[in-house]
């Protein structure tokens, strides 16, 4: 077990956003967080790496208590890709190099530059190295953000809707890449995702959130017609096509 979230609570202006949320994740596992807008998914991610300070509960990463770690040490263990980020006039290489920030003392070393080079190559972003990120397409930009988080060499990756602005090809490409790298490097991934079929294709485990709480968690078996009706208030059919579970809205 690499990440353990234990009855995490968070409230914003006395409104409960997270209510005793608990789950665990193993090494190399990909977990999809599902739920309607406002269910507390983004807040959950931000509480895991202390971007927001939880009001109660505890997050453990390999038995270390995250709330007691300095932010810079957390940054070496947990990478984070937000839902929205500014596009500034910065080259792709520089943007990814920022992921080395937790390790940089005075200036980036050759080792930092090598790590960035490898990641760019892996994501086939090499040819864009010196392009400004404000000139990239949505898919390329999303990959750059993921590359930056990977440059942190984290044990856990938190992704807030990494595919929402991508076309079908890029959605699949980005998620497959994340899954591959999770397997190869033993990185655990927590991803917020809205497309249930994409989630079914990608994730090993599912956490369904409703009204600040976990509604259900587990393998593909938790994605049922009843659960989706409860969580999303939408009627769907869940069918098996070519041995794959598919969710069809009716």
């Amino acid at each position, binding site marked *: 077990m690499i990440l353990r979230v234990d009855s995490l609570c968070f409230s914003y202006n006395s409104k409960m956003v997270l209510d005793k949320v608990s789950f665990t994740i193993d090494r190399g596992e990909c977990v999809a967080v599902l739920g309607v807008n406002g269910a507390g998914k983004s807040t959950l991610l931000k509480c895991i790496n202390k971007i927001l300070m939880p009001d109660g509960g505890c997050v453990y990463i390999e038995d270390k208590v995250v709330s007691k770690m300095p*932010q810079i*040490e957390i*940054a070496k263990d*947990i990478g984070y890709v937000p839902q929205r980020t500014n596009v500034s006039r910065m080259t792709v*290489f520089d943007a990814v190099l920022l992921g080395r*920030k937790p390790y940089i003392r005075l200036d980036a070393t050759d080792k930092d*530059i090598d790590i960035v080079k490898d990641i*760019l190559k892996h994501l086939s972003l090499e040819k864009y190295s010196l392009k400004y990120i404000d000139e990239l397409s949505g898919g390329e930009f999303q990959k750059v953000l993921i590359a930056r988080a990977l440059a942190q060499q984290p044990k856990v990756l938190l992704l807030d809707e990494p595919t929402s602005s991508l076309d079908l090809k890029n959605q699949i490409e980005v998620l497959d890449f994340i899954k591959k790298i999770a397997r190869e490097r033993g990185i655990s991934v927590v991803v917020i995702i809205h497309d249930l079929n994409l989630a079914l294709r990608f994730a090993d485990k599912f956490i369904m959130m409703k009204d600040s709480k976990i509604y259900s968690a587990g393998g593909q078996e938790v994605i049922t017609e009843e659960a989706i009706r409860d969580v999303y208030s939408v009627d769907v059919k869940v069918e098996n096509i070519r041995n794959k579970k598919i969710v069809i809205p009716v």
Partner: protein
Amino acid sequence: MQADIMYKRYVGRKKYVFIALLLILFILSFVALNLGASRATLINLIGFFRGIDDQDANLILWRIRLPRILAAIVAGAALSISGCIMQNNLKNPLASPFTLGISNAAAFGANVAIILLDAGSTQSSTKDAVIINNPYIVNICAFVFSIFATFIVIKLAKLKFFSKEAIVLSGVALGSLFTAATTLIQYFAQDYQVAAAVFWTFGDLGRVSYKEVLIMATATLISYVYFYLHRWDYNTLEASDDVAKSLGVDVEKLRLRSLLLVSFATATAVSFIGVIGFIGLIAPHIMRRIVGSDLRFLIPTSTILGSVLLLLSDTIARTIISPIVLPVGVITSFLGAPLFLYLLIKEEDRG
């Protein structure tokens, strides 16, 4: 070619921009030393180094022009680096050293000194009809009120966890409060006091001697060192506050300290030379177009560009209708406003 080699070359090229700017500053300083209403020229300067002693010329070169040139370099650097850090911290292209209301607060302080503490007066015979007869009181008052304004803004912003919006809005509100207070005390003042106070608010580099230059330089250097050491942290802010935190940066602490140091450098400069607009806004903007928003390069290059722009403006101010010396603030605004609009329009084109 390998991405890392390309990248290293690209970074190397940016260093040339810095060197080129330094060279321009150096040449401009010599030109400025040579130009002016009096006959002192570079020939006297060469003569000086050869041991030929022309006392008048030496006086003009060493006692009047050189401190003025140094003041332009230091104040230009202080304003520009402050603007650069403010624009980064507040993620607002319109942020400047004066966003926190420092210019208004300093002007209020100067007015208090000149009008309420009677530090200004008139003189009828000379061409400078208005003089400030106790500059130290004025400097100190301007400085104290600038720092006071900063603390108020920071206190207010702290309530909102140093959100960018909170900082900008408190700065604007406090600025207009100080302007109102200034108008109020001017309304009840004598004519000559108002004249002296208005005169003070035109930024002018002719007021400083080596001692003041040294004080400004120290304040600027302290701030510069902090800013440059935190260049990577500022770069993470370019992405977003959340990303910065996820990369291990203590955003609130960084923003608090940055604001304090910006205010310290700006307030020191403004207290001695008055309000000089546009340098702090435009120098970082120009450099951002050339070296990008990477603070590793933006900090050093916009610092030097600020010096270049202020020195250029001051040299124009001294020579354009010589022997009359215009306040440099007028020139920076005249040059700055069209340049700023030009940049804005070009920016639109690109988008």
